[in-house]
C-alpha cells in the first residue's frame, strides 16, 4: 500500500484514504457559445496516456476531502511530488528535498 502526501494535511497517508480523479490541468473551456465542437470534444474525451510521469488529480476523500494534484510515474508507480489544486505543475528539475523519498535520484 502506497503512502501519498496530501499537500493540505502535510502528511503521508495510506492510499486507501485517497481516490484518483483523472488527469490534472484540464481547463474547462468557456463560455459555451464561444467553444468549438472540437475544443469541447477534446475537453470531454481526449487525454494523454504517456509512459512515465503524468500529472493527475487525487482527492483525499477519507481525510480532509480536498482535491489536489500529483505527478506520478506510470512505470514505477512512484509519486514524484504532490501539490495543491490551482498550482502549476512543478518543473521536472525539482530540488530533491521537494520530491518524495522514492523519487529522489
Amino acid at each position, binding site marked *: 500500500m502506497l503512502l501519498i502526501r496530501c499537500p493540505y494535511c502535510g502528511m503521508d497517508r495510506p492510499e486507501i484514504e485517497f481516490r484518483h*480523479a483523472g488527469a490534472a490541468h484540464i481547463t474547462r473551456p468557456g463560455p459555451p457559445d464561444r*467553444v468549438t465542437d472540437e475544443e469541447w470534444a477534446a475537453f470531454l474525451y481526449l487525454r494523454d496516456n504517456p509512459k512515465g510521469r503524468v500529472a493527475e488529480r487525487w*482527492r483525499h476523500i477519507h481525510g480532509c476531502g*480536498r482535491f489536489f494534484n500529483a505527478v506520478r510515474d506510470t512505470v514505477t508507480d512512484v509519486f514524484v511530488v504532490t501539490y495543491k*489544486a490551482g498550482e502549476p505543475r512543478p518543473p521536472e528539475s525539482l530540488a530533491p528535498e521537494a520530491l518524495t*523519498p522514492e*523519487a*529522489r535520484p
Partner: protein
Amino acid sequence: MTGFRSPAGGRIDRSKPVRFTFDGRQMHGHAGDTLASALLANGIHLVGRSFKYHRPRGILSAGAEEPNALVTIDRGGGRETPNLRATQVELHEGLVARSQNRFPGLRFDIGSINNAFSRFLGAGFYYKTFMGPRALGGAKLWARLFEPAIRRAAGLGKAPAGPDPDRYANRFAHCEVLVIGGGEAGLAEALRRSEDPACRVMLCDEQAELGGWMLVEAPERADEMVEALAARPNVTLLPRSQAFGAYAQNFVAIAQQLADPLALPDPDSPRERLWQVRAGEVVLASGAIERPLVFPDNDLPGILLAGAAETYLRRYGVLVGRKIAVLTACDSAYGAAFALQDAGAEIVAIAETRAAPGAGEMAACAIARGIPVLPATTIIGTTGHLRVSGILLGRLRPDGTAEPSGGFPADTVLMSGGWTPSIHLFSQTKGKLRWDEALGAYVPAAPAPGQAIRVSGAAAGEMPAGMCSRALGALPVPGSPDRVKAFVDFQNDVTARDLRLATREGFRSIEHVKRYTTTGMATDQGKTSNLNSLGIVAAETGRSVPEIGLTTFRAPYTPVTFGLFAGQARGDLFDPVRRTPMHDWAERNGAVFEDVGSWKRAHYFLPRRPVDPAASGHAAMHEAVQAECRKVREAVGLFDASTLGKIEFVGPDAAEFLERAYVNPVKGLGIGRCRYAVLLNEAGFIIDDGIIARLAEDRFHVTTTTGGAARVFGMFEDYLQTEWPELKVWQTSVTEHWAVIAVQGPRAREIIADLVEGIDLSDAAFPHMAVREGRIAGMPCRLFRVSFTGEFGYEINIPAGLALPLWEKLAERAAEFGGGPYGTEAMHILRAEKGYIIVGQETDGTMTPDDVGLGKAIGRKKPDFIGKRGLMRPDLVAPGRKQLVGLVAEDRSRVLEEGAQIVPDSLAPAGTHALGHVTSAYASAALGHGFALAVVEDGRSRLGQVLHVPMERETIAVRVVEPVFLDPEGKRLHG
C-alpha cells in the same frame, strides 16, 4: 523409545506425549514436534504423491520451503485446510492429518500410472495436448472425456466444500524497525536496535519458536536472546508469523497464526491475523535455504536435505534413518553426518561431487570417524519403490560425464547442493540483486529508491564458505541424461529433462521456460528449485547464470488463506447495510425489502405472509402492490423516502452555485419555493434529478436520487474546490440527518393537519412546490408540498431520531382513512402513470433533458451550467434521437417486459435496427390496463403509431401514446 526417536536431546517435551492420526493411523509424538518430525519419529517418510506423476514423495526439508510433504489438516466441524506443509504444522493432541492426491491410498495409488506415461506428460504437455488430438475422437470427445480425467488426476489437496467457520482478524501497526526472521541475525539486530527505548522494534518469524538455526546448534543462546528481547517493552515479538509480502515504502504484510494449536479452536477468538506493518526500516534476516542436488530419482522418500536431517536430530530428537548415505557439494552436510553418526546411525558413505572436497578438513574428520569419503562422485540411480533402499554411484570424469562406480545399501540419503540466500521479500520490493560467483547465488545489491530495507545474515550472503557451492543444475549420468528422471521442481514435477526439452524447443528467456515447464510456479514458489533450473538452462544454452536472468519473485512467500484477506468482511459485515429509522416498523408490518445501493428499502408490504412464499410470491406481490396504489389514489399512502440524498447549501453564493450546477434557473427561485431540477454531466447527459428548495436567501435544501447521493455530492465538491473556488458556498450532506415521510393522496392534508404547528396548510398559503419550516407533533420539521405520485401530498422531513413516533402516528391515522404504507414498487407505478422519469431507468447515461420531455426545464438564458455546451453538440441536437413516450399494448391487458426492443414491423427479421426499448412497464389499477414508458427514435412524432415488440415466442403490437397516463392537467396535485 520406539521407532526413530533419539534417547535424549532436542527441544521437544518428552514428558508430554501427543496422539495424532495420519491417514487414519493412530501415532504418538511429543509436544514441540512438527507433524513432519513426529512422522519421521514413527519411521514414516512416504507422506504424499506428486502433482503430475503421482510419484511417492517424502519429507524433503524441515521448514517453509517444503515442496513435497503437503497434507490436509482436519480440525473438525468443517475446519479443513489443504496443502499445509507438514514441516510447519505444530503437533497437538488429536491432530488429524491426511495425505493428498492419491487414490485409493498412499502406498497404492492408481494415479501413479501417469509415471509410466511420463514421456507424454513432459514440458508443455498442457499446451501440446489440450487442443484435442484428432486421434482421440476430436476436440469434442476430448473436452468431455479425456481432459476432465487428466485434470482430475493432477493436483494437490481438495478445497473444503463448506464455508470457513473460523474468524480472521486484521491489524495495522507502525514501528521504527521491523525485523523479518528470528534466527541469530534477526535476534541480534532486534537486540541492537531495541537498546534505544524510543525505537519500537517488531520481529516476526514463521516458526512457533524463535531462534532459527540456533535451535539446532546453540539453543541456550537462542533462549537468552529471546528472553532479553521479551523483557523490553519497546519490542513486539511475533512467532508463528510469516512475512509473506513486502511492498513499497517499507510496508510488510504478515500472516500470524493465532489459535493455540494445543487447544481446541475457540469460536470467539480468531484463527489468524493479518498484520499490515509500516516500518521506518525493514531488516530482512530470512536466512538461507539448502538446495537439493539433481540426480536420477532424487525424489524417492528417504532422500532429504542434509540440514533438515540435522534439524530433525538436534531440534526434535529424531533420526531420519539408520543406514545413511550422503551426497554433497559443500561442507555443511558433514555436520549432519557426524551428528547422526554420534546418535547411532551408520553413515555408509559421503559422496562428494567436488574433486577436492573443501579444504579437506571435514573430509579428514570423516575419514577419522571411519566414514568413507568418495571425491568426484555422484549418485546415478537409486533402488527402492516407496522408500530408498540403496544408491548407485558414478565417478565424475573431468569431461563432465559419469561412469558407474558401485553402490551402497542405504535407507536414507542426505543431499546438499549448497545454500541459497532467501532474498524473496527483498526482491518483492524491487531491490536490485547481484550474482555472487563465489556463493553461487544471487545476493541483495541495492534497495529500490526510497526503500529502507536492509538484508542481514545468511540472506545477505553472509555465510561460512562451507555452506557455499557453485554446483548448480543437473549432475551427470552415464549415457543420455534424458533417460532418467532427475527432479528440479519437486512440487510441480519438473525434471531436468523438461528444462532441456524446453530449451531445445526454442525457449530462451527464463520467464518463458518457467511458464512452459511450470518450474518454480507451484505453491512453494520454487524455493528449492529456482537456482538449479537456472543452472540447467544456462548449461543448455551456453550462457552464464547471470546472463539467464532471474524470474520475478511475487507475494505470497508461502500460501495464505483466503480467510486472512477477507478478515471480518464476510456475511453481514461484507458490506455495510443502511437502514432507515422506519425499518423495524416496516419489518413488523410485513415489508419485503429490496436493496437500493447499500440501503434496505420496503419494496411492498404483505400484511399477511403467504404460507408458501415460493408458490404464491408473485401473485401475492401483485395483489399487495395494486392495493397499495389504490390506497394512495383513493385515500392516503405513507412512503418512507428517507433514503433520498439530501444536501444543504449555505452561503452568499449558494444560489449562484446551484444556478451553474443544475439545468434549471435557480437564482429567481423564491424563498419557500421548490423546483424540480435536472443535473447533467459535461457531455450533456442526465445523471441525476431532485428537488431544489430555497429556505432562505442563502440556504437551500437539495435532494438527489438515492443511488446518486454520494456521487453527486462528490461532483459538487469537485466543482466547488477546483472549478469555481471563488464561490462562497458550503455544502453539507444531510441525507442521514433528515428522515422523510411522504404522505400522498386525497386525504393527505386531513391526516397531518392538526399535528402541524406554525404552517398554514391552505392551498393559497402553501401551494404545490412550496416548502415551510415548522413543527409537526411537537417536533421540528421541514414540510415540502411536493408529489412523486401525481396526488396531493407532502414530504415531511424530520430529524431521523424523531421520525419513528411520527410515522407510527401517521400510519394509525392512514389506516383509519383506508390508507396505509406503500413500498417502492407502488411508488414506481404511481410515478410512471404520471410519466415521471426515474434516472437510471428512463435514462441510461445517453439521454438529454429534451429526450425525456424536460427540455422546458432548461434555463435557456443562463450563460453557462454543467452540460450546457454538451447539449449543443451536433449529435445531441440532430433529428432521430430517442424520446420518451408511453406505450399501450393493443391487447390492453398485456404488461410488456422492461428492456424489450421496439421495431416498426411485426415481421421484422432478426437483426432489424431497433427504434428503442421499453424502460418501465406495469399493470395499473388506476388505468385498468397495462402500460409502459419507452424511449423511441423520434418518439414524439410517432404518437398514435402502432409499433411492435418482438419477444421470444410472439410479437406484441403496441400503440405510441403520450407518456402521461393519468391526470395530465394536474388537478389531483393541486387538491
